[in-house]
């Protein structure tokens, strides 16, 4: 079972990475980021659950919390980009002013 979970976690991570690198739209890239965090949380949580360690669970929880905060900030940035009139695409963002 562990082997399957490890494999799944790895593939999810790689797919998230692919989404970040290959997609043009900012929000799609953001989804990839979140996918990567979820993959990491899966691997860590699985091990914590198997071993019964509370510390592992704490770690995963904190990671999730931080990921949520990051989601807030990231989405705000995307909205700001949209409000400033530029297209929300990675290709168009060459300067970071505004």
């Amino acid at each position, binding site marked *: 079972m562990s082997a399957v979970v490890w494999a799944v976690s790895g593939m999810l991570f790689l797919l998230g*990475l692919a989404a*970040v*690198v*290959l997609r*043009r739209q900012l929000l799609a890239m953001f989804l990839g980021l979140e996918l990567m965090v979820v993959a990491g949380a899966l691997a860590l949580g699985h091990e914590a659950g198997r071993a019964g360690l509370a510390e592992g669970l704490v770690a995963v929880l904190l990671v999730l919390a931080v990921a949520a905060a990051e989601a807030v900030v990231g989405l705000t940035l995307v909205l700001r980009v949209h409000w400033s009139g530029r297209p929300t695409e*990675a*290709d168009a*963002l*060459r300067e970071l002013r505004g």
Partner: protein
Amino acid sequence: MIDIPLAVYLLFAAPLAALAVGFFVTRRYQPEATYIPILLSCAVVCACSAYLAAFVYSGRGLDGTLFRWMVAGDWDVPFGVRIDGIGVSVLVMVSLVGALIHLYAVGYMKGDPGFARFFLVFHLFYLSMIGLLVSNNYVQFYLFWELVGVCSYFLIGFWMHKPAARRAALQAFLTLRVADFGLMLAVLMLMGLYRNTRFAALYAIVPGIPAGILAWLGVLFVWAAAGKSALFPLYFWLPDAMEGPTPVSALMHAATMVTAGIFLLVRSWPLIRAVPGLPESIAVLGACTALFAALLAATQTDLKRILAYSTVSHLGLMAFGLGLGQVTAGIFHLVTHGFFKAVLFLCAGILAHAAGKSTVTVSEVGGLRRKMPMTFLCFLAAALSLAGFPLTAGFYSKDAILAAAFAHGGWAVPAGLAIAAGSAFYISRMLFLIFFGSRPEQKPLEHPHEAPPVMAVPVMFLSTGAVCVGWLGRDLARMLGSGWPKSVPGPVLEGPTLAVSSAGLAAAALGAAAAYWLTMRRPSWDWQWRRQRPGLEALFFEDLGWRRVPAACVTAAVWFADKVGRVLDRDCWDAAIEGSAGVCRRLSEAGGRLATGRLSDSLWWVLTGAAALLAWAGWR
């Protein structure tokens, strides 16, 4: 510890001292007196060489180091002397003939603005030749060889204002350079392989040298000797070198410098002997050169050029004798040739001096027997010696070579006899044309006068030598016996047998008779065939077409240099260097295109870097 006699030191010290005094003192203050220290030094050198000859004749020999010249790690090049029979016999001839020609030159060059310069360079040449003859290792030999070549350049081009002289000097130097390259390669090979170029050491290890290397060394030595001693492919500089003053022609291009090549072959004989087929090739080369040059000598009109071709022919004869295995005969002929050829050149110089020019042609002389009797007698003596008249020196040496040819058998016999006939023919032609009869085409000299004593006396001495030296043949053979280690069979000088002598005499008589008939019975024949067949004359003047070959080689060399200089250097190399700026610019532009500023590209780079790091970490 070998005890080196004072004579050896004096051999070098006297000329050096004379040169120093001449250059720093007399040249500045009293140029006309430059000859005095130099003549003194010549006398000292002659005395020393006589002493050393006696030294060797009494059975002693010497091979020692004067000082260590070049040292690097296990390389050691000494500056030493080798006093053995070979070196000393030639040394005596060179020192004596050289000293007498120095004396002659005092009269010949009188009034020339370059008088001091002439004597200094001439004496430097004398010193170099002596150093060459007593060297005991190849590197030192090469030093003096090159020094002799340099002096030759200066002396041939002595009259610098004449473009022909400059061109002849340059031609001589460059041709010799091509030949010297062979010697340089051989010396480098020896240094690199054996760390030691002393003759004595090399003679001892000859049996151990691999056959391929021996063959290379042999061929390179022959190539170098062919250049310096004017054998077939590289002889063409010698006739043109007659642009130099007559003493130069007499000393360098008759008696001494051109014999340096033959001397190299003799010094290297234990090596050359060990290469199968090489001595025979040398004999063939020598015979071809001798016959070819004899033919050309018979067709020239300028007196000095006739003698130049005659020198080439006799050098070929020496090589012929050497190649047939008779080293003694070769050296013997070298010595006798030095005497009689010097006399011939000096007489030509006297004739030119009487005409007020630097050289004369056969059209400007004629019937001078009565008007210049002393010159006539000396010339006659030397001519008889060259032709091989009995009891003259040339007779003995030529007989020795003919004996070797007969002993060899086969093709050597007709070749030897043809050479004898040819030599007799051209020298008799010269004799008859200059001194006998008056012919309509010849415009006689206006003021035929004998030479002043300072010029006449040396010529007389030398002509005496030209006749008498041959009687010392047995003694020479005895001296030569000490030249090599015992492993090489000692040289033997066979006495003239009746068969060989009569065959030689018959050939010579045939040649002389032909010359007599063509110059005395048909006085104008020499000019007639030139008028009737100018194309033939042009062909002979071009050495039967051989002169075009070096010209073509030079053209090819210049073409090659142009390709290298223009195409390779300018178009490829310079373009590459100057194009490197463009390359840099294009590289930087391509690199600049990498920085797109796009987020996705940056992400790709992050990904690539992280993957590389992970891979590297995983590899560890």
